């Protein structure tokens, strides 16, 4: 017997933000780091900053740390992003 069954997914889901245009080069640019504040991020981002500056010629690196590592970035951090050419964010344990 044929069954008619329903789609359980969120067909009304809202579309998230679109990625910004990729810069052709990071030379002379400002890169922002959004750390979730966990212990392991310090060494990771410090190493990444060295690589960005020495190998890719990044001029400035801005560090921001979320007040709650399980919640979205604070409004003042989101506001800061418009001053950057690229941003690195994500999980760090």
């Amino acid at each position: 017997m044929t069954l008619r069954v329903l789609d359980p997914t969120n067909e009304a889901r809202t579309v998230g933000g679109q990625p910004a245009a990729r810069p052709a080069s990071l030379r002379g640019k400002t890169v922002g780091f959004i750390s979730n504040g966990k212990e392991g991020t310090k060494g990771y981002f410090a190493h990444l900053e060295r690589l960005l500056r020495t190998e890719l010629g990044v001029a400035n690196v801005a560090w921001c740390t979320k007040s709650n590592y399980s919640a979205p970035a604070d409004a003042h951090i989101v506001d800061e992003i418009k001053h950057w050419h690229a941003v690195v964010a994500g999980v760090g344990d």
Partner: protein
Amino acid sequence: MQLSLKPALLAKIYEVEDFAAAQELYHSKGWTDGLPVVPPTEAAVAACLEWAGMPPDQLIGIEPVRAQPISAEKLAINAVMAGCLPMHFPVVVAAWQGMMQEEFLLHGVTASTGGCAIFVILNGPIRREIGANPTFNALGNSDRATAVIGRALRLALINLMDVRPGGIDRSTLGHPGKFSYCVAEDEEDTTWEPLSVVRGIPSGASAVTVMAAMAPRQIMNEWTREPKEILETFAAEMRANQRHYSIHGGNYAIVIAKQLRDHIEAAGWTKRDIAEFIYERARVRRSEWADVGKGAVVRDRGESVYTALAGPDHLLVVAAGGPAGGFGAVVPPWLGDKTKAVTVAIGACVDCAPGKG
């Protein structure tokens, strides 16, 4: 021509040959928790909506971080898949209303590597109406109602919020409560106030409490009738959790089964007395981290004291469990106070409450 007064369902329809084909469709699309599901037919879903008095497009809420709308129809589809009958559906709705309150931090709770589950506690007349069993095996497969309600929350997270392992769900380990984690309080066999009443819901109303929780840690103390000694065992388990898992205070639940409950009640202790005692006893010094291999993060704050609870009100005391055995359970929070337990009256409009803008 006969006109139907029921509003049409909006979800996309799939036609499959039979029950087995339905299973393969849902598994192949990643729409299950790995177990077989009840095929959500139009009739079954419509019956849930009718029972709750909701049109298909009724907005149950919007998840605050990713702004995803949750409709009654989509929630009903997932509830049917979990095995819910129409009478279970209002509980699922209320639980989701609670989960979408900002203080619950649903996104963090479901995305975290910590791997918690949604612990659900039922109170009020609805427990009996739906046949929930608050006694034997209360935290396990105690009955149909709690099994399917807990499962419905997980399936809806998977399908409505993309909380799939490796997707939004980044859990390192997770725990078995992620299949279903629902308990009914044994209100008939205790002198204590129901949890929902302790948390401000009028007596006699049905309610659901949701809490982002780790796996239960079972305790045993069959060798005393003294409330302080019994509760010291619970407090010790909470201290162990602070040392081994997270030192930070948050909502803990303790489930006290009949045998231990009888001793505590006979001595005249209320839930408030229990909470105040536990608050005082469940605390550790940061230096204790050094005893369990975490000396690197003690630093110069070794003498700082961390309470498992920010205050006595943060303890959820639940009467449940079978009649014999000196057992209880500590249900720890996902991670300190980053998430708060939420209690919602079933059938109430959460966002209509005074003070909600």
